[in-house]
């Protein structure tokens, strides 16, 4: 279990417990956090699960695959701390993770 805080673009916070092994995207969908669409259900095919990872956790969320890198390159409003949340596996180390959501996923 890791506590993850998703912060919507308008500032609304959702703190939920997510089972380790799930992805950060699945944690949002299962808890009905608005703002992550996840059209492709985690196949790294849609970039509608885009999040900004809090600076304190950037080193702990794993490396981006070439596919993720390439999808993000063309997503909107991308920042250096942008990630596709379906590609971040939840580990105990991520307890306390904060991710911010973009204004829109489309």
């Amino acid at each position: 279990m890791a506590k993850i805080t998703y912060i919507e673009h308008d500032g609304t916070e959702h703190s939920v417990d997510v089972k380790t092994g799930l992805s950060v995207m699945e944690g949002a969908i299962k808890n009905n956090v608005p703002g992550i669409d996840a059209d492709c259900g985690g196949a790294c095919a849609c970039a509608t699960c885009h999040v900004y990872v809090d600076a304190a956790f950037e080193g702990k969320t794993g490396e981006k695959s070439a596919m993720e890198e390439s999808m993000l390159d063309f997503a909107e409003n991308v920042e250096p701390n942008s990630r596709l949340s379906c590609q971040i596996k939840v580990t105990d180390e991520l307890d306390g993770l904060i991710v911010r959501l973009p204004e829109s996923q489309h």
Partner: protein
Amino acid sequence: MSDLKAKVVILGAGHAGGAMAAFLRQAGHEGPIVLIGDEPIGPYQRPPLSKAWLKGEADADSLALKDPAWYADNGCDLKLGVRATGLNRGDKTVTLSTGETVSYDILVFATGARARKLPIPGADLQGVLELRTAADAEALKAALGEGKRLAIIGGGYVGLEVAASARALGAHAMVLERETRILARVACSQLSDFFIAYHKARGVSFELGVEITAFEGEGGHIRRVRLADGRAIDCDAALVGIGAIPNDDLAKDAGLECVNGIVVDLDARTADPDVFAIGDVTHRPLPLYDRQFRLESVPNALEQAKVAAGVIAGKPPLTPEVPWFWSDQFDLKLQIAGLPFDADTILVRGDPATAKFAVFHLKGDQIQAVEAVNSPPEFMMGKQLIGNRKAVSPERLADTTVSMKEVIA
């Protein structure tokens, strides 16, 4: 006019229905939600059934849209294993297979589509399978394994994905297709040529332009597929993957207009203001292409669920999305955006021999559709350009030394 306290009854607890319940709560809807589904389990994702799940790379938990407790915790009465059997729009009630009658303020059809059957002798033999539900997928998985021979009737996406997964499990896969090319209804011939070669190189065999006349068995179990030319193809199981038919019968019987699916407007509403329809069961407007069409994809189901939830909860309208779809086969990721309606030119960017290329369908200097194989930039940029209708330069688009960010005319 929206009423946040309205009782919303959703027929069909699939991807669209499950997402609808979730989006209603996200949009602030407070009234009761009743979600009625005839499958034994709650809403789940179907795409992995032919891909990651079939290969054993995803478990049932990860397929479920929500944890089982979510529904009760969120005021959603999930009725499983129950079929809606009648609709009375006059007194706004639905009859269920349990004999119960449920009243509604707002009704949402999310009944999806069912696998098309092949009405030939032997279709009821054991081992003649289809793939639409998790239960179907369990039966298919049980029929696969080292050395097993699977005959796949129909070379569409589901058939090809299953062929690739079957190979990964050590089974033999033979695709039997009536048309002279695979993916004939859903992709261009360049893509068909590429996919058939890629599959063949990985041990899938194909028979094109063949008609199947019977499934033949012994002891009630399928043993071979009989072709019209007299040949027989031996197999241990056969998967019929020849498309899907919308579950619109209930709507039709209740006098709602259906044309290969329930006709809805851009708000996902039928001609009855209290009845919506979303997902695979709808015949919906495609504003980018100026026509009505039936789509079968998760992004479409999610878009319509979100639109309908927003309309019911009185939210501002959303911008229509560009239709899109994906398919995973072996190590290939195919991403398709748009639909090739009215296209006058087909342009290939990149070299199919490298398994990294994209096919663009242009109408003049506008992109109508893109089919991208292992090419996320082409897909992502193509999808944006389809949506914002910006003109591109075909010469630059065909030139891979020009980046996708620089192809705008």
